[in-house]
């Protein structure tokens, strides 16, 4: 390596600088020139002809680009010591992911109760009608329950055999607990496993040509399964530890809040009033927005703004899911009206925390001590 970089800098440098635009401005201001210089030096061989060719025609390697992308994720979803705006977004994404995983865990735990009820193990409750459309391991997987782990999903076009590995959906319990306990690697591994059953279920429906026109379940899988897995990247080494006690206590609280009313509605013959997970998400986020709006009013802190941002993210996700599912329910006036009401309530509630969320991004603080001057 050597060569007159001054004269030879070409497309390789431009391409690398383009990749560096992924990084936040404050970071580039401090590190960009240094990164470009180190990158170019690491790319050259010392042979002037070869180096000229490399500088003019080569591109940054995929691993190199991946390292920049990973750095960008870590910076935008900031952790301890990050500028206020990026810390707020980092905390917001981490809380939104925790909230979605909490809901998934509650739904999975709730499925045990429904299983017990439909198998007449809860003798003190009225017997369930058969077959019962219940939630099994995943809110996407609904159907009669011949056996807990060996399902046959009856659809209008016939039965779809499913496999015991649908039980992987129960991995959400491990994902949530591991995340709260700071075992991020375990959580990420199990999150990938847990997202599988829903996808297979949707692919089965698609391949069997059942309800091919409905986009709701696909949007649901993307926002309720895939995006949370990807967003686990926010739980990096610099992320502040999760507050264990409140998030662990939220599990039994959520279970009671969600499962008991759902079970009561099913038991007393009002199963139609049990909302699907997009509707349930809209209702829960709307309630959380009301609580947060009151909290932000009484005591404003930086932390409160991150909660508002988290609720805005959740409202966007569940709002999109609600709309996507609504598109397939327009023929049913009950579901249509319910869906529209949920959307209106959600929009009104999220407006209450929008200002607080915007404030959280606030002015950027001066660079941390230890940064070289730009």
């Amino acid at each position, binding site marked *: 390596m050597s060569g007159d970089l001054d004269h030879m800098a070409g497309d390789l440098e431009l391409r690398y600088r383009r990749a560096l635009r992924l990084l936040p401005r404050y970071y580039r201001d401090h590190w960009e020139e240094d990164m470009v210089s180190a990158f170019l030096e690491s790319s050259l061989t010392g042979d002037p002809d070869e180096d000229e060719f490399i500088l003019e025609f080569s591109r940054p390697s995929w*691993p190199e680009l991946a390292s920049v992308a990973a750095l960008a994720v870590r910076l935008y979803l900031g952790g301890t010591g990050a500028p206020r705006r990026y810390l707020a977004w980092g905390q917001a994404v981490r809380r939104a992911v925790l909230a979605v995983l909490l809901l998934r865990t509650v739904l999975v735990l709730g499925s045990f109760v429904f299983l017990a009820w439909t198998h007449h193990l809860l003798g003190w409750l009225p017997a369930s009608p058969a077959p019962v459309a219940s939630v099994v391991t995943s809110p996407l997987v609904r159907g009669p329950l011949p056996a807990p782990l060996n399902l046959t999903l009856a659809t209008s076009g016939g039965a779809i055999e499913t496999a015991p590995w649908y039980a992987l959906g129960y991995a959400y319990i491990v994902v949530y607990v591991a995340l709260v306990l700071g075992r991020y690697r375990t959580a990420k591994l199990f999150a990938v496993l847990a997202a599988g059953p829903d996808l297979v279920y949707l692919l089965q429906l698609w391949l069997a040509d059942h309800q091919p026109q409905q986009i709701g379940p696909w949007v649901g899988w993307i926002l309720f399964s895939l995006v949370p897995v990807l967003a686990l990247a926010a739980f990096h080494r610099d992320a502040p530890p999760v507050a264990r006690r409140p998030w662990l206590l939220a599990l039994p609280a959520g279970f009671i809040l969600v499962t008991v009313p759902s079970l009561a509605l099913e038991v007393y013959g009002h199963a139609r009033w049990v909302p699907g997970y997009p509707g349930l998400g809209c209702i829960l986020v709307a309630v959380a927005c009301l609580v947060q709006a009151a909290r932000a009013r009484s005591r404003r802190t930086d932390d409160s703004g991150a909660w508002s941002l988290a609720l805005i993210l959740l409202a966007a996700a569940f709002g999109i899911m609600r709309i996507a599912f609504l598109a397939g329910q327009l023929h049913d006036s009950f579901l249509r009206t319910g869906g529209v009401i949920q959307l209106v309530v959600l929009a009104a509630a999220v407006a209450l925390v929008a200002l607080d969320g915007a404030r959280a991004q606030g002015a950027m603080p001066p660079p941390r001590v*230890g940064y070289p001057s730009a």
Partner: protein
Amino acid sequence: MTWQAFFVLTALADGPRHGYGIVREVAELSQGKVQLKIGSLYGLLDRLSSDRLIEPDRDEPHDGRLRRYYRLTRDGWGALEQEADLRAATAHVARAKLSLPRPELGLPRPDLGFPRPETAG
């Protein structure tokens, strides 16, 4: 402390280095096993400088560009010393355990170049 951070601090232990100099030194120290990408390196430098374990030393012109050199701070020196002691102690224990006879594995006792611990029988 991660392996990568340990190698970067070790690379700076004998004097200031610039970004690519650190990449080369880390590759050499690790016998080619740790090949830092530039994005990973600057993520690490950012973290180490915010933890005040390293700091900028000087800028030097090279081929029409400025190379920025980094050096260990006093805290960085202490952290590296502590980590090096820990890793050396762990390696010593591992070596000592490996020197114990394990006939069930059919392994010969290696000559480790230091006295073996006393074993019963």
